[in-house]
């Protein structure tokens, strides 16, 4: 059986979903092909921090726009604007914090520095050794577990055909476009978007495009429910801690500590050797954590390319194919950059520039 579409999107994370919905809104007939389930990848397991303070300077406008989209989605994604604190505990860290947050403020994030008294007022239970703290009132979080529910409904509403559980689709060029073969089904698309997260490098390779993508494993932990300990989202100047107490009282702890990849299955796994320092830093910052039980630690894939900027644009040398992924802070930025991608594929001019993957080919040749 063959079904025909204007666009097939490979990968049902935020990137793929947001792009698919936008393209469908422009009148394209779109199929979403997801190996596991919508929002089952990084988009559904990330720490959900919406913090401008941990966004790259050049990505700030995209992050600001992403914040607004999540804010509109509101309760459906568990959005909460709590404000965010980033902390430094030594002189060296304070210096770093000053430099980094000043650059981010200049890029448009409403960040300022707080006195120790102000820190105590915003978060009285924090460790008293804080040297310097920055504050951004726009910061907050959303509940990434709801990504799948949210986007599955939005895809349906936009009229996108959803194909989930499509293990290892075989992708190829076909007459007048592209095809994805899943078991005995064939899906045909005039255009194709590769938005398959940690699966990007092999997917691009199916079209003869070789861009090295580094796959990393990020970890997150969560505690049992606890009485209110802290309101704002908390970060550390190194980015090695993100901490927030959700509305239900659980405390979510992340910071990009690296897990492992299971040799047999390729699944990402928690590494206790990194979970422990992650929790140490968390407990140092919020001493009351010592009493709380950790109920779950988990991991997801985060991917990046050599320059740590997104892959977002046409797949070099393959007419009609596009790629979107490797976005740092992709939970925050995803809904917006996906829209831009949908615009590009539908032949509209995106309101902000994208990040042409061809730059990485040129670098590879050099």
């Amino acid at each position, binding site marked *: 059986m063959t079904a025909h579409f204007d666009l097939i999107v490979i990968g049902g994370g935020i990137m793929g979903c947001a792009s698919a919905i936008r393209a469908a809104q422009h009148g394209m007939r779109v199929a979403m092909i997801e190996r596991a*389930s*919508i*929002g089952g990848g990084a988009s559904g397991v990330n720490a959900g921090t919406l913090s401008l303070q941990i966004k790259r300077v050049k990505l700030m406008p995209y992050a600001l726009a992403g914040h607004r989209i999540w804010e509109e989605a509101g309760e459906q994604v568990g959005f909460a604007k709590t404000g965010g604190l980033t902390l430094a505990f030594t002189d060296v860290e304070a210096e770093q914090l000053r430099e980094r947050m000043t650059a981010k403020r200049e890029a448009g994030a409403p960040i300022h520095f707080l006195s120790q008294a102000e820190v105590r007022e915003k978060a009285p239970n924090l460790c008293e050794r804080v040297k310097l703290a920055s504050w951004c009132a726009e910061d907050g979080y959303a509940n990434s577990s709801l990504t*799948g*529910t949210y986007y599955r409904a939005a895809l349906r509403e936009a009229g996108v055909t959803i194909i989930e559980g499509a293990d290892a689709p075989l992708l190829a060029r076909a007459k007048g476009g592209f095809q994805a073969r899943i078991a005995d089904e064939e899906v045909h698309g005039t255009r194709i978007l590769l938005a398959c997260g940690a699966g990007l490098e092999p997917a691009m390779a199916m079209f003869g495009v070789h861009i090295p993508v580094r796959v990393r494993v990020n970890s997150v932990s969560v*505690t*049992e429910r606890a009485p209110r300990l802290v309101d704002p989202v908390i970060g550390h100047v190194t980015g090695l801690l993100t901490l927030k107490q959700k509305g239900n009282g659980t405390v979510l702890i992340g910071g990009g500590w690296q897990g492992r990849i*299971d040799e047999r299955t390729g699944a990402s796994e928690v590494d206790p050797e990194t979970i422990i320092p992650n929790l140490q830093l968390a407990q140092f910052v919020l001493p009351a954590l010592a009493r709380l039980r950790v109920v779950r*630690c988990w991991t997801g894939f985060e991917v990046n390319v050599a320059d740590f900027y997104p892959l977002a644009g046409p797949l070099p040398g393959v007419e009609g194919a596009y790629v979107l992924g490797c976005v740092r802070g992709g939970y925050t930025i995803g809904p917006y950059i996906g829209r831009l991608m949908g615009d590009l594929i539908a032949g509209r001019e995106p309101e902000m520039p994208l990040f042409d993957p061809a730059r990485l080919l040129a670098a590879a040749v050099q």
Partner: protein
Amino acid sequence: MTEQPHFDVIVIGGGPAGVAAAVQADAKRLSVLLIDEQERAGGQVYRWNGVGIDAGPGAEMRARLAASGVRTAFSHRCWHVQPDRTVRCTGPDGNMTFTADALILATGASERVTPVPGWTTPGVVGLAAATILLKSEGVLPGRNVVVAGCGPLLLFVAAKIIAGGGQVAAIVDRNGPSDWLSCLPAAMTNPKLGMEGAGWALSLLKRGTPIHFNSRIVAVNGDDEVQAVSVAAVGENASSSAHSIACDALCYGDGLMPATEMTRLLHADHDFDAALGGWHVRADAHRRTSLDRIYACGDGAGVMGAAAAPVQGRIAALAAAWDLGKMDEARFEAETQRLSRYGQRVSRFGAAMTGLTVAGVRVPLTGSEMICRCESVSHDELERAVAAGAVTVNAVKAATRCGMGPCGGRYCVPSVAKIIAAHEQVDVSRIAPGTARPPLRPVPVGTLMGDFAYEDIPFREPAPL
């Protein structure tokens, strides 16, 4: 403990399976560490009650262990295991890491309780949990108790309640007399236990305890305490045929489920077999899992009962000894064959008993009951999530929080699988359990951390600006 963190063999679980494995491995001159979160060996059946004289098979087991060279780490809770056989646990001295050349998992089973409306009312106790109350604490679950579900524990619990001076309002059994009769041949293979069971049955008959065969609980009534249960025939519409039985407690269980969280965390291969309690880790005749030098035995690898568990434990230990080059082939073959033959004989009883609980594996859910106690997720909510397209255990968990609480989904995931299976019109055996995540048991942050200084935290360079 700390001076030698590496062992030839680590055994996790100090029930009949694990103790037998540890003692056997020690007899083969392997260095062995046995870990259990309880204070002493015994597991579920031979749990030591902490008072009085330690007697019976449990005491014998503990004496054998004490006389061996096995090192023990009781009151140690494993929270993480790795395929390279690194084991982490928390104990009185905080977080400990041990490694081994072979890892034997003997972590037992947990109880299957099928949710019905009202099952979270105080006064509802699991059937297996009730055995612990009765055995080690000598406490009656209530004064007028309904005992319901399926399997041999129905008889045991009812008889113990009566022996303890309580009243059994009724036994509600999913099975019928013919199911029990079909167990008779197997029961004869263990005359002692068979007679014991017959004795319980007789005592109930003598008392005229009402037994409702082929029946099930459809609701528990009462607000702050159990006041009655509604009972209907299996397969019949609950609303039309239910009748009420007054009681002040309900002991209710549908058999045991192998503990798979450790083996799923390890990504070992698993199979579904209702006759073994549902999902269980795959192990070959010598108890080898799909992972290198990791073995599984006892109820945790498929519920076979207390007699089969030590035999499997010993076979696992022999396989480890052989795989580590500590036994010659002839000895290995001879000893494992002898044990296997013996095991087949003694397993028949337990297998037949587990067979009586198969009736509880696929029972349909009622409709409006609470499924996830930790996170308060109802059946309706789960059905809505499944209808909206969340058709894997992981997707349902993400959408509803079902299974995200402290129990780690141990009790609710089988119900989630049933709801998905009903929606997708497939058998529950087609619905994979969700991804297992550490810690295997909730652990206090402070216990994991121990003492540390800020300066010791291994910071990396910050991300590019």
